[in-house]
């Protein structure tokens, strides 16, 4: 991905992350802490955190189109960097109350679960698109074969 595409993707994800966190906060606080409103500091953390979480996207930076193998490698790097970023932010912003290993592992597993879920959804969407494209390609080839048959008919 070129820097232009990366920046576009980062900006897109930034708004998705911020909206997602605010939506989660709304649901969870409505259920578990209806009297606990979002403070100004927490809003700044969400906006700031959203920007930080998009930075691992830079691991996909490349002037040439990445092959599937290269993409898989970058995806692993992206995931590791993202996990480190989330854990670091959790420490810095005091999201981990006890800061014990179990809490860190729970956080890391949550990130993994969301990561895999998003990947699976996007894979399913792409798979559906590829099936549609393949169906049309088959029609295209069928038409081409028939045209070739007509040309062969004239050549005789």
């Amino acid at each position: 991905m070129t820097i232009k595409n990366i920046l576009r993707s980062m900006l897109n994800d930034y708004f998705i992350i911020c909206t997602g966190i605010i939506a989660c906060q709304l649901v969870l606080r409505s259920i578990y802490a209806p009297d606990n409103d979002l403070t100004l500091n927490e809003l700044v953390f969400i906006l700031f955190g959203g920007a930080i979480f998009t930075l691992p996207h830079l691991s996909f930076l490349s002037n040439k189109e990445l092959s599937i193998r290269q993409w898989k490698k970058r995806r692993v790097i992206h995931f590791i960097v993202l996990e480190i970023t989330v854990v670091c932010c959790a420490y810095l912003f005091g999201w981990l109350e006890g800061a014990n290993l179990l809490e860190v592992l729970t956080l890391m597993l949550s990130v993994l679960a969301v990561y895999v879920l998003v990947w699976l959804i996007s894979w399913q969407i792409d798979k559906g698109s590829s099936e549609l494209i393949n169906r049309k390609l088959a029609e295209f080839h069928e038409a081409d074969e028939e045209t070739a048959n007509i040309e062969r008919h004239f050549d005789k």
Partner: protein
Amino acid sequence: MIYLARIMIYHKNMKISIEEIPGAREEEIVIRCHAIDEGIYQIINRIKTPEDTVIGFLGNQIHRISPRDVFYFEAVDNKVFIYTKNEVYESKQKLYEIEEMYGSRFFLRTSKSMIMNIKKIKYVSPAFNGRFEACFINDEKQIISRQYVGALKSKLML
């Protein structure tokens, strides 16, 4: 009138009929259609445009290549290469010039550095993040960038 075949041409399922006429009458092509749409214009363009060739260089030799035989064009380090089933030729044209010349037919820009021949693509498969991998009829695989997937769908009328 000889009924010849029913074909899918430019996404239109049409019947082809040929009528042999006396030598005194002028030969003509008549298209009977429900409406003059994009598909009809493409058929007219195809009839009007003579079969052109792509010029490819292989060492000191100059080759005339039919666009039908081209799998894809690729730009590498400011040079453009023409990939066919068995050979790789160098082109003196820029990729954007090739796109302008053949883009309206079965060629399509699929990444910043590549133009593919749709007719040579056997199938596509997902390649992460909205990209696709095109498998050609010779089993070679190339990536279709995310931003060009929409153009591919439009070309296939999806």
